[in-house]
Each structure stands twice: as structure tokens, then as C-alpha cells.
């Protein structure tokens, strides 16, 4: 089994916090709002920095790639900022549900282009990534006025709640379970054939390695799922890469960062889809350059170890 697939299997997106810790923050938001929650977040972040190095080091897989020359001290500083960044995003997500969507200002760049893509009537694939707060991106899609289906698998036993659960409202999107019949592909195909919107994540492989393609990301090779590109080739649906970023204490920016078009002959097997996954990764690299602490994949995505890459590069330079 390839290294990154093994890592993703051993890693869970489930919250590391205990249920009472989540409830504490939810109460704090109700009583003291964002400022109180952000203030206490510093103590939680400090706890993880000092007493949970196992969790803290999960940031390093990405941080060492994003900041290749960082010293140990600099790395600690990056870890601190990343833990705070994640905490703030999680708090904001709860705030939207508890205090209402007006408590976060969301701006969307590319609204007209998204409507134009939808008007092609081939369906629309919204491809996101585990960056910023994808729920804010989803909450800004009402203007599309067509049903939105979301490919999402929830970890069993996860105590972290989504914004709609706080608000006590039904989930505003249709969920397609990737562990369902044929990985939900027929449902996804149906969504696109009806001219509707399908939302997927392009940065995390949570299934068979057979459905992944290798691309370069931050100096190493990662394997990313190509299912969305295959669906695009089959239906003619354009892929709109939509990424969200926290830009202020109560502000998020959602940006249509690129449009990927896969021709019908886009390819059948993994190598045929590599150029399209490459387009996505290039957009993602631009994003992490701009928002280095908002990339939230806490496992080793890369095929090889950074140390072995450095060693081979060093050997090469000696030859």
C-alpha cells in the first residue's frame, strides 16, 4: 500500500477534543461571543503545543513542505499559528450556527461566472479543499437556485458539530455517502445529468488507491482522487474550484479560483486525469502561498519522506 494511502487510512478527521470541551466552547460563544471564545482558544492551543506533541506534530507534514528552510524554533511558531488558525475556523463555524449567519461576513468572488457555468446545463462540479472553512463556502451558494449535493462521509463518533446542527435546521444540502453503492458515483452522475450542482473535495483520497492519480504538490508527489474529473469527462460538466479563506476576525472570502474543463476523451485511467489534477494542485499551491495557515490536512499526504528526498537531492548534487 502506498505511503500516503496508508497514512490517510490511519488518520481520522474526527475532532481530537472531548465532548465537554466542545460544549464549553459552545456555551462560551453563547455567553461571550467570538471574543471570549477566541481568548480561551489561546489556552487550548497552548495545551496542545506543550502537552500534546503528537497532535502538534501533525501540522509538520505540511509545514515542513510549505516552509522547507524553517528552523526548529520557526517550525514551533508555524505550528502555533496553524493550531490557532484551525481553532478560529472551528469557532467561526459554531458561531454561524449559534449566533446566526449574519455574525460572519462572507464575500464571494466569481458569482457571475458560476451562474454562467451553471447556465451551460451540463451540471456543475464545485471542487473544494480542506482549507479555510468550506462550510462558509457552502452557505453562500443559495443564489445558485438549484439543488446542491455534497459528497461527504462523516466519521463515526465525531462530536464536532456542523453549523446547521447548532442552528437546529435540516442540512441544507443533499448528502451523497461515498461508502454507499458504487461509492455514490451513480448518484453523482444523476445530479449532473439533471443539471444540478455537485460539491466534492479534491485534496483528500479516502478510498481506493486505484482511483488516484499522482501529481506534484509543494515539492513532493501526492496522490489525489480523480473521480470528479472522470465525472466531468462523462457529463461535460465544468469543474469550478471554489476555495474559502478567513480574511478577518469575522470575515471570509470565497473565491472561484479556477475552472477546469475535462474533454470527453480526458482519459480512462489515472494518467489521463493527471493534467487536470495538476491544474487543481497548482491552484492549491497559490492558495497556500497566500494563506499558509489555512490548509487543514493533518496527515502525510506525500509519497516519500522529506528527509529521503533531501538526502537524494544531496547525493545528486555531490555527483
Amino acid at each position: 500500500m502506498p505511503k500516503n494511502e496508508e497514512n490517510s487510512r490511519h488518520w481520522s478527521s474526527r475532532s481530537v477534543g472531548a465532548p465537554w470541551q466542545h460544549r464549553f466552547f459552545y456555551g462560551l460563544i453563547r455567553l461571550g461571543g467570538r471574543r471570549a471564545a477566541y481568548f480561551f482558544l489561546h489556552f487550548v492551543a497552548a495545551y496542545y503545543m506543550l502537552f500534546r506533541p503528537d497532535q502538534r506534530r501533525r501540522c509538520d507534514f505540511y509545514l515542513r513542505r510549505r516552509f522547507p528552510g524553517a528552523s526548529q524554533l520557526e517550525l514551533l511558531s508555524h505550528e502555533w499559528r496553524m493550531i490557532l488558525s484551525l481553532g478560529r475556523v472551528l469557532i467561526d463555524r459554531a458561531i454561524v450556527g449559534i449566533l446566526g449567519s449574519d455574525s460572519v461576513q462572507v464575500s464571494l468572488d466569481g458569482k457571475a461566472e458560476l451562474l454562467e457555468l451553471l447556465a451551460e446545463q451540463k451540471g456543475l462540479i464545485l471542487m473544494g479543499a480542506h482549507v479555510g472553512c468550506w462550510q462558509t463556502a457552502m452557505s453562500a451558494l443559495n443564489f445558485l437556485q438549484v439543488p446542491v449535493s455534497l459528497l461527504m462521509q462523516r466519521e463515526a463518533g465525531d462530536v464536532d458539530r456542523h453549523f446547521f446542527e447548532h442552528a437546529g435546521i435540516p442540512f441544507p444540502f443533499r448528502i451523497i455517502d461515498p461508502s454507499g453503492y458504487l461509492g455514490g458515483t451513480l448518484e453523482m452522475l444523476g445530479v449532473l445529468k439533471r443539471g444540478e450542482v455537485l460539491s466534492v473535495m479534491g485534496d483528500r483520497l479516502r478510498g481506493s488507491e486505484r482511483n488516484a492519480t499522482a501529481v506534484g504538490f509543494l515539492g513532493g508527489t501526492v496522490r489525489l482522487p480523480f473521480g470528479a474529473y472522470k465525472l466531468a469527462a462523462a457529463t461535460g460538466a465544468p469543474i469550478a474550484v471554489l476555495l474559502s479563506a478567513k480574511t478577518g476576525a469575522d470575515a471570509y472570502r470565497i473565491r472561484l479560483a479556477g475552472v477546469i474543463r475535462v474533454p470527453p476523451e480526458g482519459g480512462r485511467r489515472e494518467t489521463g486525469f493527471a493534467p487536470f489534477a495538476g491544474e487543481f494542485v497548482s491552484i492549491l499551491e497559490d492558495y497556500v502561498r497566500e494563506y499558509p495557515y489555512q490548509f487543514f490536512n493533518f496527515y502525510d499526504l506525500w509519497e516519500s519522506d522529506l528527509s529521503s528526498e533531501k538526502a537524494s537531492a544531496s547525493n545528486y548534487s555531490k555527483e
Partner: protein
Amino acid sequence: MSIKEKLKKILVEELNLEDMTPEEIVDDAPLFGDGLGLDSLDAVELVVLVQKHFGVEIKDMDEGRPALQSVNSLAAFIEAKSAT
């Protein structure tokens, strides 16, 4: 060539069922998993191929799930759709 024969030829040639000939495919063998070994993304490809070669559209999960069980079920689905 019958619908079943044509389907088997498509499966082997266009879905890259290596080490298999159309004649070796059993009519009732499951298309996915332990049967012919096709996967979820092959299902997408198969839906497209059925439309391309037979002019029959598998619109969604409700139609696709019973139709994509085996060569037999898919052939019956194509036959029924072609007749309407």
C-alpha cells in the same frame, strides 16, 4: 450480434478487462466487486458507453442500480428502454 455479445465486447475492449475474452464473461456474473472486478468509476464509464453504443440513457441511481448488476440485467434494461 446480440445485445449481450455487444456488451461483453464493450466490457473487454473499452473497460480494459485484461486477461478476459468476451466469451469468458458469464451472463449472470456480478459486474462489480468479486464478479468482473469493475469498480465505482468503471460504473461511470459503463453508463457513458451504454449511451454511446445503444443510445440508452441510465439517468440515475434508481435506474442504474438494478440495471448494472450483470450482463443479463443490463441487456434487459437496454432492450426495455429501446422498445419504448
